[in-house]
């Protein structure tokens, strides 16, 4: 189905380029849980923005797992802009195709991440398993739901946040840290392919005692579900997740949308963009522009960054943990669950 949506969108873009007077169409490939955010951003942008020759801009969205979206763009999805769960996925597009410039991260403020988020726990009403922090997830008898880090960008942040906690708890002793993270993943009842899939498994199918997820996704689910059905638990230490945005310049140049794409991504940094971001449960990088009420929802917790020496940036973290036969694969290779 998604293929067809993409194909028809691609066809739409071709048609739009043919006729000069219609709206400009941008194709935006994003990761899973940003649907509501960009719905609102796109509506606000489209209603106020006009190109120099007075045309309006329509934005077509394509959502999917972050890794999958990167692969689609590499394989030829004609996206003008991407917003993915982590910088590594955009790096891959730049490295493998050159369609995005190598220095894409320096094109917009704060490493091209207009918003941040963090990783939190969601538990069922009353927190029956008394889950307070990461070590509760490694306890026997606790059932955990989290997506597969191989396919989901959010899941990689989840895993690395657990790793950061383990590093502190075991003072950097690697073998103990590995055992700890393995204990958490042995408690996993289902590995979905994306963050939204895990949310559905936890909320609709009632599987698991705790869901490890994006803070924005947790708030979104709280708002969607009945009052008191779920509770958010902030761990003592989490990770500062920075989902970046970039222009796929080769595509945008071909479509003649380079300027519009730049203005579109800049809009995310505007006061209005930042206000929408906070309203949609993402942490704005310019909190002064956001509504104080929205900001009050975010708990101030300690967060490590991917550039912390513990990880050494995405390239090193990816190679050490998530590449084939990396530490994550070893969790399952070194013995079956239970």
């Amino acid at each position, binding site marked *: 189905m998604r293929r067809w949506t993409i194909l028809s969108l691609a066809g739409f873009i071709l048609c739009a380029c043919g006729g000069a007077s219609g709206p400009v169409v941008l194709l935006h490939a994003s990761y899973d849980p940003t649907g509501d955010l960009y719905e609102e951003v796109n509506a606000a942008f489209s209603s106020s923005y006009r190109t120099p020759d007075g045309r309006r801009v329509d934005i077509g969205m394509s959502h999917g797992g972050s*890794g999958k979206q990167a*692969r689609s763009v590499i394989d030829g999805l004609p996206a003008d802009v991407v917003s993915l769960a982590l910088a590594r996925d955009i790096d*891959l597009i730049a490295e493998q195709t050159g369609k995005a410039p190598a220095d894409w991260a320096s094109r917009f403020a704060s490493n091209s991440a207009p918003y941040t988020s963090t990783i939190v726990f969601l538990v069922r009403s009353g927190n029956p398993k008394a889950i307070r922090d990461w070590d509760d997830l490694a306890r026997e008898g606790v059932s955990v739901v989290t997506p597969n880090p191989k396919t989901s960008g959010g899941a990689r942040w989840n895993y690395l946040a657990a790793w950061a906690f383990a590093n502190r708890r075991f003072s950097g002793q690697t073998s103990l840290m590995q055992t700890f993270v393995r204990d958490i993943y042995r408690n*996993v009842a*289902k*590995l979905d392919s994306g963050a939204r899939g895990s949310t559905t498994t936890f909320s609709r*199918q009632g599987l698991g005692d705790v869901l490890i997820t994006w803070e924005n996704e947790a708030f979104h689910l709280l708002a969607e579900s009945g009052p008191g059905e779920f509770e958010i638990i902030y761990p003592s230490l989490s990770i500062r997740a920075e989902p970046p945005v970039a222009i796929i310049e080769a595509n945008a140049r071909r479509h003649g949308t380079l300027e519009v794409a730049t203005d579109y991504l800049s809009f995310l940094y505007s006061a209005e963009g930042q206000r929408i971001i906070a309203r949609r449960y993402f942490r704005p990088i310019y909190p002064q522009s956001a509504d104080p009420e929205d900001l009050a929802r975010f708990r101030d917790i300690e967060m490590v960054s991917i550039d912390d020496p513990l990880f050494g940036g995405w390239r090193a973290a990816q190679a050490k943990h998530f590449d084939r036969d990396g530490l994550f694969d070893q969790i399952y*290779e070194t013995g079956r*669950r239970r």
Partner: protein
Amino acid sequence: MSGKASLIAPGLKPRAGRVLPGFGISLGYTLAYLSLIVLIPLGALGLEAASIGWDAFWDIATDRRVAAALQLSFGAAILAAVVNMIFGVIIAWVLVRYRFPGRRLLDAAVDLPFALPTAVAGIALATLYAPSGLFGSFLESVFGLRVGFTATGVVLALIFVGLPFVVRTVQPVLEDMEPETEEAAASLGASRWRTATRVILPALAPAMLTGFALSLARGVGEYGSVIFIASNLPFESEIAPLLIVIRLDEHNYAGATAIAVIMLAISFLMLLLINTLQALSRKWLGHE
């Protein structure tokens, strides 16, 4: 097969007294169409696999996780096809031999697994069979059996998507078979069991095998419904098609291609075996 081969030789000679003309053009069309739709894409897959190199290919093929995924995919598909073969025949029998109110509705319901998007089926099954779901909680509390998010769930999903194949292949054969056949067997002194096993089942065997093969082939490739009801944990309920998707998401095209080629080879061998069995069963049972 031998029958077809003998037809081709005289057919290549100019118009060997056929009623309808057009053998040449229709064969040409068939070959071109099959090449375009099936053979060329599969050939491209083979070419991609050939570029991996034998050693790397062997490494991937013997990887424990790949082996576990293949074992689950083929094991669950075989199990589901067996279940479908047995219950498919019963359903076809009921639909053909008995008249009762709601029969047409039931008949139409058989095709639903064809029409439903598999993801919808997967979500529905997962919701029902989740530990907190309607059936899931019952099965767990009464029999201690977990279906949702286990390998059993994979088999269940494959039974669901493969059900119509056996019913729809057996049904026309049963419709052609007059009830008089059974009555004749009975009047000649055959017991009920003997009538069923020596008269009816042999006539149905080729159709049952066709249904089995179709259900099996469908099950091996099924992805959409399974990933919802399986836990997708490596070594536990990770199917081979999911592992292919995971390899793709790791940008490991060689790994994905290698698993695909292995699946293709096993499927081809199994279908070849079933077709041979079918030809033999026709010969043995005298239904040429």
